[in-house]
C-alpha cells in the first residue's frame, strides 16, 4: 500500500502537466479548429525566456542616427515571481503575433494544411528558442525553482515537496479559471457557440476573428505557465522535450474530443498516473526490456480510444472530405501572400523585360533540357570532380534525404494521408539490413532487400488506423506511434558500425554510385506510379473518398497500397543509412526527423517528383556541405528558422511547393488575364452547339466557382 501511495505524488504531478497541456490545446482548438502542434514549442520558448530573465542577461542598445547617440548597456534581472508577469506578457504577445501572421491567413484552409502549418510553426519556434538562448539544456537550479524543493509533508512515508504540491495546486487553479471563463463569461459562451456551429454563430454576430485572438492569447499564456512550471519540475529540460510532450497533451485532449475540458483534464491525469505506475512497477523489473513503456502506453491509449470511436470524440471534430494539401481549396488569403504573390512578380518582370513572352516560352524546352542535362552530368561525374574528400558523405546523405522526402510525396502529396512516423520506417529498413547482414550473415543484396521487405508488414500495421482515421486523428495516431517507436524500439537496435558491403563496393565512391542507382530506380518507379492507374487511384482517394468509391476505387486497398509504397521508400533510405553510418541511427528514426523532413518536402513541392530533388539540394546537400566545411564549430539555427518560415510562406502562397512554382505562376497569370479569351468563348459555343442547345447566354468562360461552392463544408 505504501508502495502504491508513493507513486501518487509523481503520478499527480505528471498528470497535472499533461492536463495543463491538454487544456491549452482544447482552448485553442475549440475556438479556431486549429490543432496546435506548436503548443509545446510555445511553452518552451516562454520557459527559456523566463529563466533567462531570472538568470539575468546583459543587454545593450546603441543607436547612432545623425546627431543622436544613444548607448545603453545594462543587466536585466528579475526575481522569479517578478519575472512571471513579464514572461506571461511575452507569452500573450507571442500568441497575438502567431494568431495574426500565421493562423489568420489559413482560417479557411483544410485540416491537413493546418496540421502542416502548425508543425512548421513548432519547428520555427524551437529553432528560434535555440538561436536566442542556446542549444544547451535549461537547468533550473534549486534557488530558481518555482516553489522550494524542500519537503512539504509526507504521505505514507513519502515526502512531497512544496514544488510538486504547488504545481498540482496551480494546475487545479488554472483549470478552474479556464472552466469558469467558459461557464460564466460572455466570451466563453461565444467560443462555445463557435465551437458548436461556426456558421450559425457568425450569422448571429459572433466575431470568429476576435475569438481567435482571445483564444490564442489565452492559450499562449496557459502554455507559458505550463512551460515555466514544467521546466522547474523536470530540473533539466531539452529544447525539444516539450515538443514531444505535446504528443502527451494531444493524447489527453483527443480523448476529450479536443473540445471537452473535464474529459481532457481527467485523461491527462490518467495518462500521467498510468505512466508513473509503469515507471514504478515495470521499469525496475527489467530496465532494458521495458524501456519506452510509458510511450507505448500513450500510444495504446490513443489508438484504443480512437478505434472505439466514442461519439463524443467525433462530435466536435471536423473531418474534411477534401484532404489534399495540394488542392488549392486551401489557398490562403493574407496580406503577406499578396505582397509576395508570384503572379505580381511575374507581371512586373514581364513588363520590365523587353522579352516577348512567346519567344521566351519557346526557348523554355531548350533551357529545361540544358538544366536537366547539366544536373545529370554533374550527378554522374560528381566523384570524379577534383573536390575535397569531405564531399562524399554529404552527397550520400543527400540521396538518403531525397528518398525520405519522396516517401512523403507519395503519402502526403498523392494519397492525401498524413504520417509523422516516417522515421520509424527508416529505422525498420536500417535495423532489418543490420540484422540480416550481421546476425544471419546473408550476402550483399539480400540484407538490403530484406530491410525493404520488412517494412511491408510494418506499413500495414501503421496504415490500419488510416483506414478509419483521417486528417488530425491520423496525424496524432502516427505521431504517438512514431514516439513509441523512437523510445521503445529504436534504442534496442542502435548499431554503431556501418554494415559491411562486399570489398569492391566498400568505398565512398562505390557507395555513392550504388545509392545513386537505387535512388534513380526508385524515382523511375515513382514516376511510373504517378502516370498510371495506381497513381490516379491515389489522387482520387486524396480528392474525395466518396466520389472515388462511387467510381469503383476501393479506399481500403488503395490506402494500404500507398502506405506500403511510401514505407518501402523510407525503409530503403534506412538501408542506405545502415550501409553508410550504421544500423539504426536514433537521430534518423526520431519524430523530430520525420517532422522536419515533412516540412522540407512540403516547401520543395509535395505533389511532384521534382520536389524531393529540389529539397535534397536545398535542405540536404547545401547544409551538409557547409556543416562539413566549417566542421560544425558554432551551431546556427538560422537555416532551420529560414526553412520553417519558408514552409509557412509556401503554404500561404502556393501549397504545391517550389517544384510547381513556374506552372502555378503561368496558370494564375492566364487565369487573371483571360476574362474574355476568344478560345474560351469558342469552346462554350462548341459545347452548346454539340448539345443542340440555344447559344444565347452561358456563364463566363473562365468560370470560377464561387467561394461557398469551393468549401466542402458549405456545399454539404
Amino acid at each position, binding site marked *: 500500500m505504501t508502495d502504491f501511495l508513493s507513486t501518487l505524488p509523481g503520478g499527480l504531478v505528471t498528470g497535472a502537466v499533461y492536463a495543463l497541456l491538454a487544456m491549452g490545446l482544447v482552448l485553442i482548438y475549440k475556438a479556431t479548429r486549429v490543432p496546435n502542434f506548436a503548443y509545446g514549442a510555445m511553452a518552451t520558448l516562454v520557459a527559456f525566456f523566463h529563466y533567462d530573465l531570472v538568470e539575468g542577461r546583459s543587454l545593450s542598445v546603441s543607436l547612432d542616427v545623425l546627431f543622436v547617440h544613444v548607448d545603453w548597456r545594462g543587466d536585466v534581472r528579475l526575481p522569479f515571481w517578478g519575472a512571471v508577469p513579464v514572461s506571461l506578457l511575452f507569452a500573450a504577445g507571442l500568441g497575438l503575433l502567431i494568431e495574426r501572421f500565421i493562423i489568420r491567413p489559413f482560417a479557411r484552409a483544410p485540416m491537413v494544411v493546418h496540421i502542416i502549418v502548425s508543425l512548421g510553426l513548432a519547428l520555427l519556434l524551437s529553432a528560434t528558442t535555440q538561436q536566442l538562448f542556446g542549444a544547451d539544456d535549461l537547468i533550473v537550479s534549486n534557488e530558481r525553482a518555482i516553489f522550494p524543493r524542500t519537503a512539504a509533508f509526507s504521505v505514507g512515508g513519502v515526502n512531497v515537496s512544496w514544488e510538486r504540491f504547488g504545481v498540482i495546486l496551480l494546475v487545479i487553479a488554472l483549470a478552474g479559471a479556464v472552466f469558469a471563463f467558459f461557464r460564466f463569461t460572455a466570451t466563453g459562451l461565444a467560443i462555445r457557440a463557435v465551437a458548436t456551429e461556426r456558421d450559425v454563430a457568425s450569422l448571429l454576430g459572433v466575431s470568429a476573428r476576435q475569438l481567435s485572438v482571445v483564444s490564442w492569447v489565452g492559450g499562449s499564456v496557459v502554455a507559458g505557465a505550463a512551460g515555466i512550471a514544467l521546466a522547474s519540475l523536470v530540473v533539466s529540460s531539452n529544447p525539444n522535450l516539450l515538443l514531444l510532450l505535446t504528443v502527451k497533451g494531444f493524447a489527453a485532449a483527443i480523448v476529450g474530443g479536443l473540445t471537452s475540458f473535464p474529459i481532457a483534464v481527467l485523461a491527462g491525469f490518467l495518462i500521467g498516473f498510468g505512466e508513473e505506475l509503469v515507471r514504478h512497477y515495470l521499469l525496475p523489473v527489467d530496465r532494458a526490456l521495458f524501456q519506452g513503456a510509458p510511450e507505448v502506453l500513450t500510444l495504446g491509449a490513443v489508438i484504443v480510444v480512437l478505434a472505439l470511436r466514442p461519439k463524443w470524440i467525433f462530435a466536435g471534430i471536423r473531418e474534411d472530405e477534401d484532404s489534399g494539401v495540394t488542392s488549392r481549396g486551401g489557398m490562403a488569403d493574407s496580406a503577406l501572400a499578396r505582397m509576395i504573390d508570384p503572379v505580381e512578380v511575374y507581371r512586373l518582370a514581364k513588363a520590365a523585360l523587353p522579352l516577348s513572352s512567346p519567344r521566351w516560352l519557346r526557348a523554355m524546352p531548350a533551357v529545361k533540357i540544358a538544366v536537366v542535362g547539366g544536373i545529370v552530368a554533374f550527378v554522374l561525374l560528381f566523384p570524379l570532380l577534383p573536390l575535397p574528400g569531405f564531399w562524399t558523405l554529404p552527397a550520400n546523405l543527400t540521396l538518403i534525404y531525397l528518398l525520405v522526402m519522396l516517401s512523403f510525396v507519395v503519402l502526403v502529396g498523392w494519397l492525401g494521408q498524413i504520417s509523422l512516423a516516417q522515421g520509424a520506417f527508416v529505422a525498420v529498413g536500417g535495423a532489418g539490413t543490420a540484422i540480416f547482414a550481421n546476425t544471419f550473415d546473408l550476402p550483399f543484396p539480400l540484407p538490403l532487400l530484406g530491410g525493404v521487405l520488412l517494412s511491408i508488414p510494418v506499413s500495414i500495421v501503421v496504415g490500419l488506423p488510416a483506414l478509419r482515421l483521417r486528417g488530425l486523428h491520423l496525424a496524432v495516431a502516427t505521431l504517438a506511434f512514431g514516439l513509441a517507436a523512437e523510445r521503445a524500439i529504436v534504442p534496442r537496435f542502435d548499431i554503431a558500425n556501418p554494415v559491411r558491403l562486399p570489398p569492391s563496393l566498400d568505398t565512398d565512391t562505390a557507395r555513392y554510385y550504388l545509392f545513386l542507382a537505387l535512388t534513380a530506380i526508385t524515382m523511375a518507379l515513382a514516376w511510373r506510379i504517378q502516370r*498510371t492507374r495506381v497513381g490516379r487511384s491515389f489522387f482520387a482517394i486524396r480528392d474525395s473518398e466518396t466520389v*472515388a468509391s462511387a467510381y469503383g476505387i476501393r479506399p481500403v486497398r488503395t490506402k494500404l497500397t500507398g502506405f506500403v509504397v511510401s514505407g518501402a521508400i523510407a525503409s530503403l533510405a534506412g538501408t542506405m543509412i545502415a550501409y553508410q553510418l550504421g544500423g539504426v541511427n536514433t537521430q534518423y528514426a526520431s519524430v523530430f526527423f520525420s517532422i522536419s523532413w515533412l516540412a522540407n518536402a512540403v516547401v520543395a513541392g509535395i505533389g511532384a517528383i521534382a520536389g524531393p530533388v529540389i529539397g535534397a539540394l536545398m535542405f540536404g546537400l547545401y547544409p551538409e556541405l557547409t556543416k562539413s566545411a566549417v566542421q560544425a564549430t558554432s551551431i546556427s539555427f538560422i537555416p532551420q528558422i529560414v526553412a520553417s518560415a519558408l514552409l509557412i510562406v509556401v503554404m500561404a502562397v502556393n501549397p504545391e511547393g517550389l517544384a510547381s512554382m513556374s506552372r502555378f505562376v503561368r496558370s494564375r497569370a492566364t487565369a487573371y488575364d483571360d476574362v474574355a479569351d476568344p478560345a474560351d468563348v469558342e469552346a462554350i459555343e462548341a*459545347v452548346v452547339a454539340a448539345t443542340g442547345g440555344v447559344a444565347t447566354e452561358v456563364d463566363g468562360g473562365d468560370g470560377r466557382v464561387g467561394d461557398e461552392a469551393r468549401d466542402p463544408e458549405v456545399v454539404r
Partner: protein
Amino acid sequence: MSTALSIEGVEVRFGGVRALDGVSFDVEEGSITGIIGPNGAGKTTLFDCISGFRRPSAGRITFAGVDLTKRAPWERTSLGVGRTFQNARLFRSMAIRDILRTVQHDGMRRSGFFRSVLGLGGARDDEREVARRADEVLELVGLAPHADKPAMELSTGMLRLAELAAVVAVRPRLLLLDEPSSGIAQAETEALAPLLRRLAAYLDATVVIIEHDMPLIMGISDEIVAMASGKLVTKGRPDDVRNHPDVLASYLGKTA
C-alpha cells in the same frame, strides 16, 4: 421489356424519422425514369441506397438479377451502376482528361500494381484503351477544348458536363442522375435534354433521374415516379402523373 432495377420495400430511418418508408417500384430495362417530389421526399436517400452509400434498414434492391442491398459502393461499379451527385462532385484537383481516365479504374483488368508500374503487357493496352475512351467521351459531351482544365476551375455548368462525362466513361448499365440541372443556367438546362437522350442512347443503359425542372423531366422520361415524405405517391406516364391529385397535393399542399 423486362425489369432491370427493382426496389422492394426499402426503408431508411434517421433516428425517429423515416426517410424512406417501404418504397417499392420496378424500372424497365432501357427506359428513362424520372423521380420527382418535394424536398425531403427521400429521393437522394433512395439514390444513396441504390449506389451503396446508405444501407437500408429493410427491403431489397436488385439490378439485373443481382442483389445489391449489402454491397459496398465500389463493388457496384463492376455490376454496372453509375451515379452523379446532387452537387456535382468530382476529383477537384484533377484535369478533366485525367478524371475520365481515373474513373475507368475498375475496368482496367490487366493492370495490377506491378504490371501497371513496370508497364508490362496488358497494362499498356489498358492505358491506351482508357485514354482512347476518355477522348471519345470528351468529344461526345463537347468538353474536348477544356480537357486540360482542373475541375475546381470549372463553372457549375461545366462541372455538371464533366461529371456526366465521367459517369458515361465508366459505361454503366444503370445510370443514376441526381438533379443534373441544378445550379446551371436556363440556356444550359434547355441543352440538357437532348444531351441526356444522346448519352442514354450511347450507353444503351437504363436511366433514373431525380429532377426538379418539370419541363425537362416530363419531356425526357418514359415513366415518372412521384415521392413524398419517404413514400411512393404514384408511378406512371408523365401526363398521368402530372395531373394526379396526390401529386398536386404534395406540391401545392392539401386542400380540405
